[in-house]
Every structure is written in C-alpha cells, then in structure tokens.
C-alpha cells in the first residue's frame, strides 16, 4: 500500500513537471483581476459582483487584488509589467485613464494595454437642493448669465468628470461658473446640503442609488438617456453640448495571445447577459452599457480627443 501511494505520488509529480508549460488557459491557475481602486468603491463592487459569472463561463477561478493609487496608474503599470500569459487582467476606467496621459508622462506604455470589454457607462449630471429655484439646466444658465461667477459648483478635483462637465457647460452656454474642490462626493454633498455651494456634479448611478429626497437633478450628460434614468433629460435635449461619462471596463496586456484575449472577452460578454447578474446590477444601479473590445478600442480615441479639447480649456483658465 505504501509503495502504491509513493508511486502514484511520483507519477503525479512527473506529470505535473512536464505539464506546466502545456496546461490549457485558463485552468492552470487562478486569473488575477487587478482592481485599480480601493475595496468597497464603485469599481471594486462592480468587479466583485461580475467575477463569479465570468468564472462560470470560463470554468476558471478569478481572484481579485486591489492595487489602488495614482488614479489607476499603479494598477495599469502592474498589468503591463505582468507576464503575458493571460492570467492577469485589470479594471480600466475612463476618463481617468485618458486624462492622466494628457498632462504628463505616465509610467506605463498605453500601447501595451488592450481593452477587453466595456461594462458600464455612467453619465455625469448636476444636482441642486430640492428647494432650489433651478429646475433645469436652462434655469441655471439664465441665472449664471445674469450673475457671472455667482454659481458655485462642487467638484472632486481638477480634471474629474464633474469639472470637465462644468467646463463644457461654460463653453457651450457662454457662462462663467466657479469651481470649488472637495475631497470626495460625500463632502461635496454635505456642502450642498448646507447651502455652501449651489450645485454639485454626481454620476447618475450614484444619484439613482442613493436617497435623493433632498436633491433634484438638472440633466444627464450622455448622448442618450441612461438605462437607469430614462426620465432624466440629457443636456443635449436641453440645448447644451455637454458630454461626460465615466466608463468602467476590463483590460489585458496586448502581448497576451489574441485568442486568449478573445476567449476572455467572450466570457465577459456572456457573463453580462446572465439574467442573475443583470438582476444584481439593477440593485446596484449599474448603468450597464456593453462595448466589445474592438468597439471600445475604436471609440476611445474619439473620447480622448474630446477630453483633450476640454482639458486644454481647463489649462488656459488656470
């Protein structure tokens, strides 16, 4: 009996020894999905919700590793430096990913980072106190025209969605607004509640998902109304050219063999179609908006150009 065990163990060892190089992707070891933001944030929760459904499609294990910092640059650098064997993927978020390349030299080569799928497109929007005299962007613009600089807008920093949206509205309507920077959406919301700023920027997903009896929304900044807010008019419908949204998706290194990337991409697509996942996405007010790797890749430069133009505006103002 003892012999048998030892022989079997030996045979297994041999098999494994020769098998390492040939094990078919993705069954060899768990796929590491790097999340570029802290645990508990929107990106993290989305990826953790989706991962089990991708696992189901691939028949593989996915482990999630949070590598927050530098708006995602740390995660993107880690992804491009990982072995190109298809066992490392990362979250990919715009506009952060695109704006970080405009201002300075980033620590990773953007050409080495290939999108796998876009999962969410969450439009930006502006909210005011529920009792505010403004009911639409038009009301706001009229007031701002009469009182240049008097409208204060809470943003979460330079080059963030809200800041870019504000700049676009200024340009499109020919008005002058005052940006006030806050550390995070919670602080901005408290300031709005206390009446210290008149308006703040917020993603539609955040607005829909939270208690909003104290606020009203003036309009969303997407081409079309988002699936989660079908009754909220877009800025375009109100006659202003404001287009800003946050995209969340997944990327892999471009050196990963194309067939592996395609397989992974297909699995993500199928996972998104899973009714169970869609139910959960609805609970979390995720503005699902799938784009295939190719489509997202084609759309990205257009978006980058648009952001670049606004970015220039921001720099001129400083």
């Amino acid at each position, binding site marked *: 009996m003892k012999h048998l065990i030892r022989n079997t163990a030996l045979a297994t060892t041999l098999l494994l020894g020769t098998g390492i190089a040939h094990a078919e992707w993705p069954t060899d070891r768990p796929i590491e999905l790097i999340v570029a933001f802290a645990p508990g944030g929107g990106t993290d929760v989305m990826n953790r919700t989706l991962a089990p459904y991708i696992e189901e499609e691939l028949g593989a294990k996915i482990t999630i590793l949070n590598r927050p910092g530098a*708006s995602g640059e740390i995660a993107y650098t880690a992804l491009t430096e990982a072995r190109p064997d298809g066992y490392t993927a990362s979250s990919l978020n715009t506009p952060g990913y695109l704006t970080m390349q405009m201002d300075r030299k980033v620590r990773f080569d953007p050409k080495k980072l290939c999108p796998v799928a876009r999962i969410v497109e969450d439009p930006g929007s502006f909210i005011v106190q529920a009792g505010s005299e403004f009911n639409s962007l038009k009301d706001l613009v009229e007031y701002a025209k009469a009182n240049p600089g008097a409208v204060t807008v809470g943003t979460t920093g330079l080059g963030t969605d809200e800041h870019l949206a504000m700049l676009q509205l200024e340009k499109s309507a020919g008005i002058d607004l005052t940006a006030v*920077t806050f*550390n995070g959406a919670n602080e901005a919301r408290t300031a709005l509640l206390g009446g*210290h700023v008149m308006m703040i920027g917020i993603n539609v997903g955040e607005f829909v998902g939270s208690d909003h009896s104290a606020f009203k929304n003036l309009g969303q900044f997407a081409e079309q109304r988002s699936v989660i807010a079908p009754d909220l008019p877009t800025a375009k419908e109100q006659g202003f050219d404001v287009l800003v949204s946050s995209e969340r998706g997944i990327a892999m290194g471009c050196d990963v063999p194309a067939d592996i990337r395609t397989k992974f991409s297909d699995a993500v697509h199928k996972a998104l179609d899973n009714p169970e996942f869609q139910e959960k996405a609805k609970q979390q007010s995720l503005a699902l908006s799938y784009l295939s790797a190719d489509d997202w890749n084609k759309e990205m430069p257009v978006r980058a150009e648009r952001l670049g133009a606004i970015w220039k505006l921001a720099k001129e103002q*400083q």
Partner: protein
Amino acid sequence: MDFINLLALGFGEALTPTNLGFCLVGALLGTLIGVLPGIGPTATIAVLLPITFYLPPLAGLIMLAGIYYGAQYGGSTTAILVNLPGEASSVVTAIDGYKMAQKGRAGSALAVAALGSFFAGTVATFGIALAGPTLSSFALSFGPAEYVSLMLFGLLAATVLARGPVLKAIGMILLGLLLGMVGIDAGSGEERLTFSAMELFDGIDFVVIAIGLFGFAEIIENLENHEARGVLVSKLSRLWPTREDFRRAWPAVLRGTGVGTFLGVLPGGGATLASFCAYSFEKKISRHPEEFGEGAVEGVAGPEAANNAGAQSSFIPLLTLGIPSNNMMAMMLSAFIIHGITPGPTVLATQPEIFWGLVASMWIGNLMLVVINLPMIGVWVKLLTVPYRLLYPAILLFCCVGVYSINNRIFDVVLAAGFGLLGYAFRKAKCEAGPLLLGFVLGPLLETNIRRAMTISHGDPSVFYERPISLVLLIATVGMLVLMVLPSFRRTREEAFQEEEA
C-alpha cells in the same frame, strides 16, 4: 418622543448577535492591552484598522470604540495592583491606587475605579446621544470659513494641551502639516513632495504613519527597558468599597465625570488629559490634600471617572462635525472612511443606525467591562507573566500584515518602518507624536477649506470675520494665543505637567 425611538433603534442594532459579539471582542481586547504596559490603544487600533474592512461597518466601529474605552478600564487594574500603569491615562491612578492596595484596600480601589468608570461612561454616552442631533443640525451651518477657524483653534489647542515644551509641540504639528501635503494637489493637479514615486501620488496613508509612529516605535522603545517583572502583586481581599469609601468617592466621581466630559470634547483633549486634570482638581479642592499620594480614594475615583468620560465624549466632535479631536479619534475617522462613510451631520440623517448603534453599544460595552474587570481580575493579572519575547514578534507581524493589506504593496511597509525609526527618535527627543498626527489629519482639511472659502468669496478674506460662528472661533483662538504668551499661564501649565512627569 423621537429621541426614544432613535435610542431604541440604536439598541436594536447594538444587540444583534454580531454587534454584541464584536462589542465583547473590543472590550476584551481593550482590557487586555490596557493591562499590558507598553501596548496602547492607539497602536492596537492602528493595527486592527485594515482588518475592519472585512467587517460590516457598524461592527468594526463598535469593536474599535470598545478597545478605546476598554483600555481605560484595563489600565487601572495594573496601576492599582502592581503600580504599573498600563496606559498613560491611568498614570495618576497608580499614585493613590497602589498605596490603597498596599494598605490592603485593593478590592475597594478596584471597585471604585470600575464603578466610577461605569457611571462616567453612562453619563458621557447620554451626553453624546443628546448632543449629537442638536450639534449636527448646527453643524450643517458650518461652511468652509467656519471649518478654517475651528481648525486653527484645534491646532492651537493641541499645542497648549500637549505635554512638554510648547515649541516642540508646534514643531511636531508643522511636521504633520508638511507630511499632509505629500501627494497630488487636487486643486491644481501638481505633484507635491512625491519625489516622483507613484506610490506617493495619493499622499501617505494615515495607517502607515500611525503604525510606524506608535506600533513600531513603541516596540523599539520597550526593547530598551529591562523587564520590570517579579513585582509583587498585592493581595486581593473583598471586592467592594467600604461605606466610608463610598461616601468619599461618589462626589469625586461626579466631578471627574464633569471634567472628563468637558475635556474630551475639546480639540487635543481625551482620556489622558482628563485624568490628569481631574487628579489636580481633586487635590486642590480636598479638605485633606495631605492624604493624596497616601491612598486617598478620591485620587482613584476622580481620574478614573474622568478618563472614561473623556474617552467617550471625544466621540462628539467626530460624530457630529467629522473632526477628530485627538489621534485616537483620527483613527476612528479613518475607520469610518474605510467603509465609505464620512462622519458628519449627514450620517445622522442618512444612516441613523450607525450613530445610534455605536452610542448604544458604548453603554452595553461599559456594562460588559464592569463584569469583565471585577470578577475576572485574577485572569488579567496573570497575563502580566506572558514573556515579551513572544508578544513583541507577534505584534510586529500584525503591524506588517496590517500595513501591507491597505494597498497590497511592500512600499507602505518600508515606509511604516521608516516612520517607526522616526518615532523612536521623537521619543528619545521627548517629542510627542500626537500633535504630528493631528497636524497630518487637520492640515489637508485646513488647506482645502481655506481654498474653498476664498473661491466662494472670490478672494475676499472678510468671510472669516463676517460670519458669526467663524468670528467667535477666531476670537477664542486669539484669546488662547494671548493666554499662551502670558507668563502666569505658562507657569501654571508647566506645573500641571510637572506632576505628570513625577
């Protein structure tokens, strides 16, 4: 009444099996580290912070709060029985408590300490429950200008209340402000003091500094001390105060509760300061000041009530305004933020279960602590025999795991180790690290609020003195500044801290 409903909601939350369990864990851990000299609540909470992410928000907060006030109970046990104050806040308890124990009144001293703490904890908890809703509606009228004035006041208060020379405290605060500037500036997008290290773009993590300055540094410093073991543990007789002790203790408990509750709310205050002040207060008003130092029961009752009241009431500014008054509360603030909750007026409105659950758990925790500490006192005393050669490596390991797990990177661990060495140097130079941590937390808040106030007013500085709340705070700040410069006040301050040195 609405108040009753909210309190009922709080107790409903705090009494769920999970929350009750974590409350007990916190109270036990607090007592444990309170008993062990050399390991304080600040270091413990710094180590446990990253772990709380894996808990539900309320459970994590309940546990951390339990550690803080639990340490106040545990610290007094060893102070009385073996003259080893487990915590800074029980240093004064040892003066009269140990004398009482030597005279065979250990049981009486322990009971007075525990019951006094419980009474003070109950009063202060009700204080939070009453002040919370009132203050938080007031807090909404706090705009950027008011925050700037409040923080100026807080930073100045921190220098006055810090131990040691004012100049050192100011130096530490300035260093804290400097460290708080590291990272990409949100207003301009420029890198500041990052030395091109990508890991520093978001600034230094609070936990990294806290574990370095308190966790690592504390262990290095303790390695220097030869283990003061083999101390005689005083005999325990009856565990109940005599009628005479009772009669003398309860007014002292009342006064201690008042002093503690008040000082806990002040920026820079908290348990340690409260206990020192209560002791000098008791001594000053006593008709038998000569008994102090020889086993006066008031000298145990007052400070013990005060440190517990101070530990509880320091939650008030954090929960209502979102401003930490001392470094322990700064830790609690990051515990909230880990869970995506920004403490402040909106939490009370949108997540009442967090505020009221925490408040209710504090009362339950205090009740648990009386039970944990009185009948089980023998167990805690035995703990003093665990050799530090086993304890320290374990703590060090926890520190490293904790720091690594914040962002999953080695960089943070190395940085924390660097801060550990720095913290050791500070201790050698007799510089308190507390003001540094406060400067680190308040600095960025101060800066962004100045910016906001100036942007909103379009560059007009009159907002700071035209808004009434801000004006009052500024006047208070100037008043404190004047006091600081006055020679008579400086002498009193030095005297107050001399007692502590002795």
